[in-house]
């Protein structure tokens, strides 16, 4: 009787595990398939429009050459500059903001946080109209869209302090206090104690700030406003899939997608650990 029951549990477990493996394999396939397809189609040279098969009949680098001969280089460089500048500046701003809100108890603190919560409830898109006009007055639109996009992206990044504040909140306050009793100024506390302990969140912030601009479409389109020299990859490549271009540019789009996704994905996989930490912490802290 005992023996039988034991066996029953074991088989049950085996059955459920097998089911899970099958499900996980299906999931993996479904999740990876589009990316495999993009990769395959980027090497298809017999036609440039959408087709009903996946494996190219003729393989070649033609689509990548097309990229090289288009404005894509410029878009890529634009995006890369924006991503790099954002990664540096947004990280500085968000860390200032979150460290302050986590560590200092000043009079306006609660009010400030509530105020930013309310500000966040306005759709950001609403401010585009005026920001576009202001940027255009400053000469930072169209061909000069890059500095304009950096400026706007960085300026209000302080509102995204939640995740890193959550991280700082987990560093015991008594460390700050001990350092202050030991004779450190607030600046020295930040520089000598907190920052060395914050590597995960610094990397997380840099990573997300760097990845953001690669997918930024709507505001980039608004600011570049039809001038190809000011496009980022998202805006530029979107234009390839419009009805009048898609037949000509579909496979080139796939090649571009590979070129854009590859470096970001590799970087991301290397720093995956920090990303996971940040995301999980952020959700728990709210």
């Amino acid at each position, binding site marked *: 009787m005992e023996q039988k029951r034991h066996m029953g549990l074991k088989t049950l477990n085996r059955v459920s595990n097998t089911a899970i493996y099958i499900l996980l394999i299906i999931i993996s396939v479904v999740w990876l398939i589009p990316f495999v397809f993009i990769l395959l189609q980027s090497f298809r040279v017999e036609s440039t429009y959408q087709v009903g098969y996946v494996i190219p009949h003729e393989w070649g680098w033609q689509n990548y050459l097309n990229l090289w001969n288009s404005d894509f280089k410029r878009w890529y460089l634009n995006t890369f500059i924006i991503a790099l500048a954002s990664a540096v500046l947004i990280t500085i701003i968000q860390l200032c903001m979150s460290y302050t809100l986590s560590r200092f108890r000043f009079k306006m603190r609660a009010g400030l946080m509530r105020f930013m919560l309310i500000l966040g409830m306005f759709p950001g898109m609403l401010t585009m109209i005026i920001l576009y006009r202001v940027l255009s007055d400053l000469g930072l639109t169209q061909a000069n869209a890059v500095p304009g996009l950096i400026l706007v992206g960085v300026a209000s990044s302080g509102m995204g302090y939640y995740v890193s504040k959550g991280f700082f909140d987990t560093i*015991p306050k008594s460390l700050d*206090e001990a350092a202050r009793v*030991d004779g450190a100024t607030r600046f020295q506390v930040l520089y000598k104690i907190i920052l060395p302990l914050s590597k995960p969140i610094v990397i997380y912030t840099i990573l997300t700030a760097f990845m953001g601009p690669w997918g930024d479409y709507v505001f980039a389109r608004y600011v570049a406003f039809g001038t190809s020299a000011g496009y980022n990859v998202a805006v530029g490549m979107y234009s390839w899939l419009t009805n009048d271009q898609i037949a000509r540019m579909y496979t080139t789009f796939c090649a571009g997608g590979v070129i854009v996704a590859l470096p970001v994905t590799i970087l991301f996989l290397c720093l995956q650990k920090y990303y996971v930490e940040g995301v999980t912490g952020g959700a728990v802290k709210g």
Partner: protein
Amino acid sequence: MASVKLTKVKKIYDNKVVAVHDFDLEIKDKEFVVFVGPSGCGKSTTLRMIAGLEEISEGTVEINGEVVNDLQPKDRGIAMVFQNYALYPHMTVYDNIAFSLRLKKVPEDVVYEKVTNAAKVLGITEYLMRKPRALSGGQRQRVAIGRAMVRDSNVFLMDEPLSNLDAKLRNQMRAEIILLREKLDTTFIYVTHDQTEAMTLGDRIVIMKDGYIMQVGTPTEVFEMPQNLFVAEFIGAPKMNIIKTELLQEGGEYYVTPFGAKFQVNDIKGEMLKKKAVKPGEILLGVRPEHISLAKPGEEGIDCKLVVNEMMGSELHLHVETEDGSSLIVRIPTVDLEDEERASLVAGCQLRIKFGGKVMHFFDPESEENLLTDKA
């Protein structure tokens, strides 16, 4: 090396909660003062106000006669040991201890000397190159103390330094703190919730409750003359038995009548009662468990039933129930008992207990103040 004086110190939080009420205390140079009380009594807050980590809402804190309310912690000449040690996780033990010296731009060879000296005193020399993560709780505690030692501060503040240690280590570290105190020869302010620590370490004990000071005194004073019911019950373990009873005065002598028995108050306490002109009537009578003994047959005593017999090794803790259902605790050293007497003490058996007049404490049932002490 420094005296500390607190005058009408008050802490009011933003949500209008008052954590500390008009705290008055003078701490003499080189004194070891312990703040003790249940959690939330304001003892840590007071310590943190002295350290400068918490703003002082009202009143003044003086160190060596200088008002330090507006000074930063680092300018107050204090050193502090935190409950969770607050060691910098990314620095080695050496760097942890050297941190404050380096901030003061002390030359490296002086730093070396001071850090190694402190390490020697604390017996952590072999761990100097380790990170805190690789240390045990007791070792971390020593590093935290070492970090405070090298600051050559006027006042040494300790916020529940032993409460994260296990019982055995705690006893050991307690002894070491006593030794440390002799070596450092400076003013100590020590916060704990553990009355044993307070009694063993402090020159004077400050007992707090809900932000108020309940009593300030030497360990002997607070034990023998608790100012009020709270102190009486807080100090001493197991805690004092409190019995609601009648105080009688017959022919110039005072008597108490707990549970129908009648015990005479001894001369000294009687004199004191007379001097205070305490009127007979209802009182709260306090008797410590160790002051209750088993009555011999025929002696005046209280009849009760043994509910639980806790064998503590050197002593027995007897939980007894009187006829009207009140619970009392009796503490009896095992050496005083004959073997068969001990064997007869099983749950359910009937006992007769008594206590002498010398060890009684009398409290006002309304104000819960000790009837024999002067108002604080």
